[in-house]
């Protein structure tokens, strides 16, 4: 592992992650941890785990994974974990999720009494992977000697500060997304946009990113989110449609790439000529606001500071009505897309704590949306950033601008 860490810029020390989790389990008196979220799998298994999967982490020693039987061999071929710790469940006597894990905890780990940490909560992200109510009832009935304690903030906490390998993965994902943006621009320039649909553009960008090393347009809200014209003014998530681009419209290309579970996510915007003065005014406002926020991120800043300062800035420019609330969302390895910070002691549970203090090597997505529905125009900016002592690093290097393109 040590050699690997030195030679491979993308290497991560999963053993250390497990030890960090176990140290926190010990502090909380947990005998075993039952993870079920995608982000927990990504963080520990260090490979793509898309099917319903559980990971059992004892207080000491190796974790053991239980995944849907059809994908177990593939995961085993990719993960650092060995055969004894990559297991499967299946709809068979003793082998379904509940039976297999109950037997493992009860008989193989020998934990019949104590405290079990599990993952429950809420999110804006449907596919989070919290333990369902049914699963909770079944597991707690099958393991009657164990007290179930919600403990997902353990994983959230130890995954908050990104290690060097993870940051390098995000840098590479950013580079890949930029290849997608270059291909998208090339496709629309010189009238190439004529007759082109949002879905087609999404595919062109996807192909370019795949060729550059991406394995997935991972985003749950529409893969590559593309919108044009009046749809850009709606502000919300935008799975691309078969709408054709048209002259005089705004375009928003929010592209997603995945590299070793790190998530590239960059939105870039255009105006298709001829742009009106009003559109240009909106575009200039948006670019200025994004630049203002990008310049404001640093260790020690808080989301509350940033939103307040942006409010003043946009107020001065007369565009505050068009800025949707919020300047970021959380980001981590695949499945970790929304939550900022790790604390459970926040004013509104599962929402960003305005007093959260950013630390060096924490990552968020600088995210801003601008929606002027009455003018049929809107923009989005997203870029995973690494918080540094005095500033932040943008992982996508694609220039911030809104060009008018013919």
């Amino acid at each position, binding site marked *: 592992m040590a050699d690997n860490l030195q030679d491979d810029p993308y290497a991560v020390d999963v053993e250390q992650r497990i030890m960090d989790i176990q140290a926190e389990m010990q502090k909380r008196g947990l005998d075993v941890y039952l993870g079920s979220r995608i982000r927990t799998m990504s963080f520990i298994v260090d490979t793509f785990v898309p099917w319903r999967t559980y990971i059992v982490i004892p207080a000491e020693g190796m974790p053991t994974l239980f995944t849907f039987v059809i994908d177990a061999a593939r995961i085993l071929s990719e993960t650092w974990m060995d055969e004894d710790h990559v297991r499967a469940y299946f709809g*068979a006597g003793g082998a379904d999720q509940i*039976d297999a894990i109950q037997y493992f905890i009860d008989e193989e780990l020998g934990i019949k009494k104590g405290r079990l940490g599990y993952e429950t909560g809420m999110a804006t992200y449907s596919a989070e992977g919290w333990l369902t109510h049914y699963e909770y009832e079944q597991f707690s009935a099958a393991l009657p000697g164990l007290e179930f304690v919600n403990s997902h903030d353990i994983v959230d906490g130890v995954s908050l500060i990104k290690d060097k390998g993870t940051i390098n993965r995000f840098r590479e994902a950013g580079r890949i997304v930029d290849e997608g943006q270059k291909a998208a621009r090339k496709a629309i320039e010189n009238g190439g946009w004529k007759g082109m649909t949002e879905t087609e553009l999404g595919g062109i960008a996807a192909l370019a990113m795949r060729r550059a090393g991406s394995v997935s347009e991972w985003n749950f809200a529409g893969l590559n989110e593309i919108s044009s014209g009046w749809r850009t003014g709606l502000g919300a998530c935008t799975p691309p449609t078969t709408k054709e681009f048209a002259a005089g419209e705004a375009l928003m290309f929010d592209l997603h790439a995945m590299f070793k579970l790190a998530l590239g996510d960059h939105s870039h915007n255009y105006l298709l000529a001829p742009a009106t003065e009003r559109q240009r005014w909106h575009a200039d406002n948006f670019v200025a606001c994004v630049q203002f926020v990008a310049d404001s991120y640093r260790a020690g800043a808080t989301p509350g500071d940033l939103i307040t300062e942006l409010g003043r800035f946009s107020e001065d420019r007369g565009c505050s009505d068009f800025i949707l609330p919020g300047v970021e969302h959380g980001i981590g390895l695949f499945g970790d897309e929304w939550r900022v910070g790790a604390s459970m002691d926040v004013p509104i549970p599962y929402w960003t704590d305005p007093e959260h203090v950013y630390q060096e090597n924490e990552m968020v997505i600088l995210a801003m949306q601008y929606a002027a529905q009455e003018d049929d125009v809107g923009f989005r900016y997203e870029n995973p950033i690494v918080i540094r002592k005095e500033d932040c690093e943008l992982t996508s290097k694609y220039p911030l601008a809104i060009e008018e393109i013919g």
Partner: protein
Amino acid sequence: MADFTYLSPEWVEEARKRLTERLTPEKMNRITSSMTNIYKNCPDGKERYMYVAIENGNIATFEVGEGEPPKAEFKIIADYETFAKISRAELGAVRALTSRKLTLRGNMAKALRLAPTVDKLNKVLASIPADY
């Protein structure tokens, strides 16, 4: 009247003989594993186990007994009658598993990988003419 009574000492002796003769390490893909079948509700009302240990493709241990079975990588639990039906080819093992007539304990992913090899062993055992 068959030659052997299922799970009797004579049946076990015959099973050892046939397994050794018919299953070479190559045929068994040189696997190393172990499994215990737990037979509940045997005709005499007792519970028995059948334990098989395979080392590098060789049948290292094959025994039937009562009481606590040796520790094995896999444990398969069912009524005697279910095992008997499977041996007589009246019930498929997969159907028995998916209808919860059989309970499997152990690493399911590994069990599936080993299943075709272990099936060769079951076929040899099923070839022994037996009264159930």
